[in-house]
């Protein structure tokens, strides 16, 4: 956990959960796993506050706990999980593209609440959708449940680990911390609920007649309701599955850029077929035969088997090496080299950064070094066809920014500089880590700037909020047009302009945070794929 990561985590926690949670969360990230009393001691907060903050963090899957051998419980906050908060908008957007508004709202509710039961999710989402629909229409629970089941089937949401059933006859006192476990097979099994109902609208002022009835009915519901049939079965968003989806998207778009639409569709089909069969950090997918691919192509593509074979051969021979041929049975067995693809994407990101920061000639030298691994200064000039003075200047600039490193090979045992070879080389892994660190700091900078902009205009924002509240209440009580206009004019034109600017700036900074997060995703996936799991 570098300084930049810790800063970013604390900013995210503060923005989403407030000061107290931020303090405790940051403390846990910095110091690793700690028991409750130590946390309270170190942060100087009361035990009660610490307990509440930990509850919030555990609910949102940001903190885990473990029963240690000596009998006390330690809490731990993995830094990487907190950084995922930055990616929530991307998860919600993906759900929207795959499962339209219903999927979007389900995933949004799950992410905002951490863990929820299915019935609670369905009810909330139905209510929200009903509000956006026209008057008189309501959203049926059944449709929402269907989408929920579909999300579970494709593993985008999963069950949370549950406490084991305690038997009544157990004499021993319950353990201080229950060990949560979930059966692999049950992780995506949706409970058999019979959810019947329709979404309810929030009470609006037009509905005065129905208002009383609704109030009564709701009270009855709250009192007379039995616990929902799926009490205790909580669901959460499956972040790894979303990451797998993003990775597949990146590979498909890279193939589309390099070749054409049809080959990218073929790659997308292959990836879809391997979604469930291949684990997320495997180096390559399971081999797929050309016949299987042909059968699984989307219905719209009427390409002949021969053309498909030609495309597959072309993909396998391409210097990019995303697709490889692993055998000849079944018309040819093909795999997708996932680790190779991630490495290529990360390298392309590095090249793009070098190009934008230092210029296209520097990018040429960078790519040259990537290909030829180690080169002397003279050889760099020769291959890249750049005059000696400029080449030297560019190499030193990249060296100072740590994109390029030197390898010394001495000719004599005394390492005399005049008798030593100095070879330039690029180490992609360390450059990727360096760039990742820079990304974290950039996002932290962007968030700080956004907060600063908002703080600068706080007075104006409060004023506009007050005016809006006055307007709303006046409209409700039926004020005249003239009075409404008077209130609106309380905000002068330049102030309105300032508000517009503020809104535009905040949106721009927000969008750019998401863009940097895309870079973070590519680099993190690459670095993770190079770590050898024991």
């Amino acid at each position, binding site marked *: 956990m570098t300084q930049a990561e810790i800063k970013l985590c604390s900013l995210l926690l503060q923005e989403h959960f407030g000061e107290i949670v931020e303090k405790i969360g940051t403390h846990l990230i910095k110091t690793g796993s700690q028991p409750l009393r130590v946390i309270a001691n170190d942060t100087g907060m009361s035990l009660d506050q610490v307990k509440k903050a930990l509850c919030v963090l555990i609910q949102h899957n940001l903190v885990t706990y473990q029963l240690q051998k000596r009998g006390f419980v330690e809490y731990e906050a993995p830094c990487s999980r907190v950084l995922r908060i930055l990616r929530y908008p991307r998860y919600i957007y993906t759900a929207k593209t795959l499962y339209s508004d219903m999927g979007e709202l389900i995933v949004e509710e799950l992410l905002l609440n951490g863990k929820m039961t299915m019935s609670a999710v369905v009810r909330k989402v139905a209510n929200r959708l009903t509000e956006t629909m026209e008057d008189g229409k309501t959203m049926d629970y059944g449709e929402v449940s269907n989408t929920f089941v579909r999300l579970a089937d494709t593993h985008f949401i999963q069950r949370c680990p549950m406490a084991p059933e305690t038997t009544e006859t157990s004499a021993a006192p319950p353990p201080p911390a229950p060990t949560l476990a979930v059966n692999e097979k049950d992780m995506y099994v949706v409970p058999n609920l019979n959810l019947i109902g329709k979404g309810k609208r929030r009470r609006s002022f037009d509905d005065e007649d129905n208002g009383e009835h609704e109030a009564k009915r709701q009270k009855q519901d709250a009192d007379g309701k039995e616990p929902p049939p799926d009490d205790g079965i909580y669901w959460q968003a499956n972040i790894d599955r979303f990451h797998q989806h993003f990775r597949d998207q*990146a590979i498909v*778009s*890279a193939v589309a*850029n*390099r070749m054409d639409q049809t080959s990218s569709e073929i790659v997308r089909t292959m990836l879809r077929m391997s979604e469930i069969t291949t684990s997320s950090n495997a180096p390559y997918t399971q081999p797929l035969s050309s016949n299987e691919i042909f059968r699984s192509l989307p219905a719209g593509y009427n390409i002949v088997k021969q053309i498909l074979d030609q495309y597959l051969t072309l993909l396998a*021979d391409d*210097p*990019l090496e995303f697709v490889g041929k692993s055998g000849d049975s079944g018309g040819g067995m093909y795999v997708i080299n996932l680790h190779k693809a991630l490495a*290529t*994407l990360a390298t*392309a*990101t590095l*090249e*793009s*950064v070098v190009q*934008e*920061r230092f210029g*296209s000639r520097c*990018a*040429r*030298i960078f*790519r*040259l070094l990537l*290909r030829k691994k180690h080169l002397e200064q003279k050889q760099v000039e020769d*291959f*890249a*066809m*750049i*005059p*000696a003075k400029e080449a030297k200047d560019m190499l030193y600039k990249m060296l100072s920014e740590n994109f390029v490193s030197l390898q010394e090979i001495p000719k004599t045992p005394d390492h005399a500089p005049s008798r030593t070879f100095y070879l330039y080389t690029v180490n992609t892994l360390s450059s990727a880590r360096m*760039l990742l660190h*820079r*990304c974290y*700091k*950039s996002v932290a*900078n*962007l968030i*700080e*700037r956004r907060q*600063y902009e908002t703080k600068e205009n706080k007075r104006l924002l409060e004023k506009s909020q007050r005016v809006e509240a006055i307007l709303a209440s006046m409209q409700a009580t039926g004020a005249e047009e003239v009075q409404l206009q008077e209130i609106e004019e309380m905000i002068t034109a330049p102030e309105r302009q300032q508000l517009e600017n503020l809104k535009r*700036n905040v949106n*721009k*900074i927000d969008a*750019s945070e*998401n*863009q*940097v*997060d*895309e*870079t973070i995703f*590519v680099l993190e996936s690459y670095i993770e794929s190079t770590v050898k799991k024991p």
Partner: protein
Amino acid sequence: MPHMEPQQRAMAINRLLSVGQLDLLRSNTGLLYRIKESQNAGKMKGSDNQEKLVYQIIEDAANKGIWSRDIRYKSNLPLTEINKILKNLESKKLIKAVKSVAASKKKVYMLYNLQPDRSVTGGAWYSDQDFESEFVEVLNQQCCKFLQTKVELSMEDIETILNTLIYDGKVEMTIIAAKEGTVGSVDGHMKLYRAVNPIIQPTGLIRTPCGLCPVFDDCHEGGEISPSNCIYMAEWLEF
């Protein structure tokens, strides 16, 4: 010459050698004599043996030329003598000095009427020992445009330019097996080039000011340079 005495033969040969009409060479079986061209014989008149020796060494180096230190090693003559001889030969316009492009201070000697080899002058990319970077750039652009319109291309003499395009990421190369005799094939292989697009769009980090900021490492909250008062951000938000 069967009817001459060996001694007479030897005397005649020696005389011809000293006059410079014959060349003395050694072979596996013994000594060989070769009659010299008449103009060459005329040229060397007035030079002594040492000069002739040096001239022969330079001649052997053909169009790659030879460095003065190498001449010294081959002839075993002292440095002062070598310099005098070289100056002499140069003034007689028998040899010339060519500056090598590899080490610009090094002078290489070759026969007057020979063309320096590519490795010495750097070939087409150099004119008067200066790197023709503009020439390279122009060819770079032209090749790229050419490849984008044509499907296949295989040309040998601009292979180095094409390599730079590969390093630019605009072109990729494959090697295919080709029949001997087709244009451009070397040892049964042919190199084909194809223009390609980059595989990703410019990445997210560089779309923010922080990605390109020159003072990134000095920036922290509360300091002289901080996100709150960053001038690059202010300008970027104005767009």
